[in-house]
C-alpha cells in the first residue's frame, strides 16, 4: 500500500529496539489470583548451569522426553494436568497403582502397608521410615497430614478425591489414620495421579505457588527440578539422597523438551535426540514401529471417546432413534482406517483394562439395516431431520469421525452437521438450554483415580445443574445403583464390580451415548532405554527411576 510518507523508519525501528530492551528491565509484580499464599516477587531465574559435555568416562545418562504440551502448574497441591509427567518423578504418593497384568492391584510407596475396618470408613497407613524430603526435612505422619489437609483446603484440581475424609489423625511418627464420613476406597484414592502427592510442609508454608512454578520441587522422589525455561524445556537431576538408592545405568538427568509440533517430535525420536515421546503424526506409527532403533508401546489407556446424545431434544429424546444412531456408525471402518492400532472399539463407558469393565455387555455394531428398521419404528422411515455434532477443533481423529459418520447418516436420510469448537465453547453450548444445545457432543473422558465411578458418575448421574452429564440423562434406578456400588468399592470390590456392570447395561440399553473407542496409549522409546512399563493409571508418565540406559 502506498503511503506518501517521508520516514525515518530507521529511527522508528531504533526506537522500537530501545523500547524492547526497556521491557527487559521492568518487572511488574505478578498478582496471584487463585493462591491465597502471599506470592513472592519473581526471583530472577538462575542462569542455566551447563551440563558437563559428555567425556569418555563420565558421560551422564540423560533421558530426553519430547513432550507435546507445556506445563501449567508445578504446585503439588494444585497441579492437575500434563505436569504430572514431571511431578511423578519428583513427588511420591502413599500407594501406587500397578500396571495391568501385575499380581497385585496396588504397591506400597510411601506407605508400607495399610488396613481398613469392615465398613471402609477408617483407614490406617503405616509409613516408610528413613525417608527425607529434598529440602532435608523428615518424611513423617505430620507431613502426610499436612499435605492432604492442605490439598483439600485449597480445593482445586482433583482435590475432591479426598472428599470422604473427615479427619486425619497422626497416631505416631509413622502411622496415620483417616476417618471418613462415608465408605470409600482410600487405598485407591491415595494412589491417584493427581492431588495425592506428599510434599514438605516447611517448604510449602514458606514458599508460595510462584516458587514452585518457577521450577522447584519439594518432594521425596528420585529427581528434583534443576532448571526450567518456560515454553522450552525443564531439566531434572538426581536426588542423591533418594530412599530407594541408586544403581549403575540409571539416568542422571531428565530433560523435558516442550515440542508442540508432532513432526519435530518424530524427527527427534528418529534422530535419537529424544529418548521418549508420544503422539507422532498418526499415520506414521507403522513406519516408526518398523525401525530397529525404536520400540512402540501400544497399550490400553483408561481414556475413551464418547458421543453423548442430547436426550432432551427431539428426535433424540426417543430411545429408538438413539439406538438407531448407535447402529449407524461405521465402527470397524473408522478404527481400521483412522485409528488403526491406536484404539479399539469401546465396550460400554468403562474402558478395557479397568476393573468394572465387562466384555459381556452389548456392543453396538455397524448395521444400517437395523438402524433403518429402528428409525421406521420410531416414525422416521426416511430420516428427514438434522443433527449438530460438536467436537474438539483441531483434533484430527474427531474430525474424521464426524466426516465418516456424516456419509453414513446421509444414507439414512439424516443430515449431520459437524462443527469443530474449542472445548469451553462446546461445553458452554451444551450447558445451555438443551433445546438450543448440540445433538451430539464428542468428548474424551479419563478417570482421576481408578474406578468406574469416575466415568459412570460424572457423565451419567442425574445433575440439578449440568456439569458433565451432557446427555442430560436422569434415571433414579441408575443413580442408586452406582452410588451404592461406590460405597462398596472399599469393602466388597466384587459386589461393587457387579453393580457397576449392571449400571452400564442400563446405559447401553437406553443408548444414552455412543461409545466410540477406547484410546490406546502409544509411546515410542529408543531401544537402548530398558525397563519401561506402560501404566495407564498415570497417563504418559515415565517413572525414569525404573529405567536404565543400555549401552
Amino acid at each position, binding site marked *: *500500500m502506498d503511503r506518501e510518507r517521508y520516514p525515518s523508519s530507521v529511527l522508528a525501528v531504533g526506537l522500537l529496539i530501545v523500547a524492547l530492551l526497556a521491557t527487559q528491565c521492568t518487572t511488574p509484580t505478578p498478582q496471584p489470583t487463585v493462591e491465597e499464599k502471599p506470592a513472592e516477587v519473581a526471583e530472577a531465574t538462575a542462569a542455566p548451569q551447563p551440563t558437563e559435555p559428555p567425556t569418555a568416562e563420565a558421560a551422564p545418562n540423560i533421558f530426553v522426553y519430547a513432550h507435546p504440551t507445556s506445563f501449567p502448574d508445578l504446585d503439588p497441591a494444585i497441579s492437575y494436568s500434563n505436569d504430572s509427567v514431571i511431578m511423578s518423578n519428583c513427588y511420591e504418593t502413599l500407594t501406587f497403582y500397578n500396571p495391568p497384568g501385575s499380581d497385585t492391584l496396588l504397591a506400597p510407596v510411601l506407605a508400607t502397608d495399610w488396613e481398613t475396618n469392615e465398613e471402609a470408613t477408617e483407614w490406617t497407613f503405616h509409613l516408610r521410615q528413613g525417608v527425607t524430603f529434598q529440602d532435608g526435612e523428615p518424611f513423617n505422619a505430620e507431613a502426610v497430614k499436612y499435605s492432604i489437609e492442605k490439598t483439600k483446603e485449597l480445593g482445586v484440581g482433583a482435590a475432591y478425591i479426598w472428599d470422604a475424609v473427615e479427619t486425619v489423625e497422626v497416631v505416631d511418627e509413622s502411622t496415620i489414620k483417616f476417618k471418613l464420613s462415608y465408605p470409600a476406597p482410600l487405598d485407591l484414592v491415595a494412589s491417584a495421579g493427581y492431588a495425592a502427592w506428599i510434599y514438605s510442609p516447611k517448604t510449602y508454608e514458606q514458599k508460595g505457588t510462584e516458587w514452585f512454578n518457577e521450577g522447584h520441587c519439594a518432594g521425596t522422589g528420585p529427581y528434583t527440578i534443576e532448571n526450567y525455561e518456560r515454553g522450552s524445556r525443564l531439566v531434572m537431576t538426581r536426588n542423591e539422597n533418594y530412599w530407594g538408592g541408586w544403581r549403575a545405568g540409571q539416568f542422571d538427568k531428565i530433560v523435558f523438551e516442550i515440542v508442540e*509440533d*508432532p*513432526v519435530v517430535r518424530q524427527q527427534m525420536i528418529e534422530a535419537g535426540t529424544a529418548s521418549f515421546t508420544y503422539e507422532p*503424526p498418526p*499415520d*506414521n506409527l507403522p*513406519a516408526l514401529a518398523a525401525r530397529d532403533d525404536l520400540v512402540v508401546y501400544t497399550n490400553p489407556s483408561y481414556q475413551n471417546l464418547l458421543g453423548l446424545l442430547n436426550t432432551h431434544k427431539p428426535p433424540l429424546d426417543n430411545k429408538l432413534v438413539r439406538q438407531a444412531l448407535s447402529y449407524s456408525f461405521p465402527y470397524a*471402518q*473408522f478404527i*481400521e*482406517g*483412522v485409528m488403526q492400532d491406536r484404539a479399539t472399539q469401546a465396550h460400554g463407558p468403562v474402558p478395557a483394562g479397568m476393573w468394572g469393565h465387562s466384555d459381556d455387555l452389548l456392543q453396538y455394531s455397524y448395521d444400517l439395516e437395523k438402524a433403518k428398521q429402528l428409525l421406521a419404528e420410531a416414525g422416521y422411515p426416511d430420516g428427514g431431520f438434522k443433527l449438530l455434532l460438536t467436537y474438539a*477443533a*483441531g483434533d*484430527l481423529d474427531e*474430525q*474424521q469421525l*464426524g*466426516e*465418516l459418520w*456424516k*456419509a453414513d447418516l446421509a444414507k439414512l436420510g439424516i443430515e449431520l452437521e*459437524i*462443527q*469443530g*469448537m474449542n472445548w469451553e465453547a462446546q461445553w458452554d453450548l451444551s450447558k445451555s438450554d438443551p433445546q438450543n444445545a448440540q445433538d451430539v457432543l464428542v468428548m474424551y473422558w479419563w478417570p482421576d483415580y481408578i474406578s468406574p465411578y469416575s466415568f459412570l458418575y460424572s457423565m451419567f448421574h442425574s445433575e440439578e445443574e449440568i456439569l458433565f452429564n451432557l446427555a442430560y440423562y436422569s434415571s433414579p434406578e441408575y443413580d442408586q445403583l452406582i452410588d451404592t456400588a461406590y460405597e462398596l468399592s472399599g469393602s466388597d470390590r466384587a459386589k461393587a464390580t457387579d453393580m457397576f456392570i449392571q449400571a452400564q447395561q442400563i446405559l447401553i440399553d437406553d443408548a444414552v451415548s455412543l461409545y466410540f473407542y477406547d484410546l490406546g496409549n502409544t509411546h515410542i522409546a529408543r531401544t537402548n532405554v530398558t525397563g519401561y512399563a506402560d501404566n495407564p493409571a498415570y497417563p504418559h508418565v515415565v517413572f525414569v527411576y525404573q529405567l536404565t540406559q543400555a549401552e
Partner: protein
Amino acid sequence: MATTPNVERAGLQTEHRTARFREYHLMLQAFRRDILAVLSLVVIVLFVLGAILAPLLTPYAGQGRGDPNILEKFRPPSSAHPLGTDYLGRDVWARILFGGRSSLSIGFLVVTVASVIGIPLGATAGYYGGWIDNLIMRITDMFLAFPPLLLAIAIAAALGPSFINAMIAIAFTWWPWYARLVRAQTLSLREQYFVEAARSIGVSDVTIIVRHILPNVLAPVLVQATMDIGSAILTGAAISFVGLGVRPPTPDWGEMISTGRIYFIERPWFAGSAGAAIFLVTLAFNLLGDAMRDVADPRTRRAVA
C-alpha cells in the same frame, strides 16, 4: 435561464465522457500488448472456471465435496488419482477444484465488501473535509491500529468458524485502506476545475460525488482491488489454516495445508498442491494488478502506435 445551465452541464459531461472513453481505449490496447498481463488473466479465468465447473472436471465429484474414501488414504499420485489422495482417501485434484470455490470467493467477496464500505466513506471524508473527515479518519485509524491478521482471527473466533464469518472478519480489517485511498484521490480531485465549475452551477454535492468524483477514482481503486484480491485470498487461506474458515468436510485450500502440514515431509502432495494453487492464483492477481497499474498511468503505459 433554465436552459443554459443544463446545456452547459450537458456539454461538460459529454466532453468528460469522451475523454474518459479515449483513455479506457488506450488502456485496453496497452494491456493487450503485455504478455504477462494477458497470461495472468487467462490463469485467473481458468481457475474460476475450474471452480465453477468442478463437478464436470473430475470423476470424483462426491469426494470433492467431502465423501470419504478411507480405504484409499494417502495414495501417492498415480494414474487413477493424478494428485494422490488425502487423509480420508479423497482425490486431491477434486478437492483442489472444489476448494477453489471457497478460496477464490473469499478473495472476491472481501475486496467487494471492503470497497463497498470504504469507497463511500472515503469519498465523503475527502469531499466534505472538516469534522466529517476527521471523524472518519479517526475511525480508520482505529481499525488500522489493529494487527490485521490478529484482528481477523479474533473476530472469526468470536463469530464462530464459517465461511461468511471469516469473510466478514477480513473485510472488517480491509476497508480502511480503500477509504484512505479514495479520500486521497478525492482530495486532489476536489481542487480541480471541473468540480469548481459544477459547484458554481449549482450541482448538488451528492451528484458531484457520484457522477464526477467516483468515476475518476475508479481506476486506482480497481488497480488496488485487483492486487488485493490476491492478498485477500492469502489472508483467507491463513484464517482457514488456523482452523477458523469453512467447516469440514467442505474443502478449502488453506484448510488443506493446515491438515496436510504434519504429513508434509513424507506425503507432500495434498498440502503441496493446495499451496501451489494459492500461490499461482495470487501471483496471477498480482501480475494483473501490476499490469493494470502500468497501463492506467500514462507515464508508464507503453506507447501504442
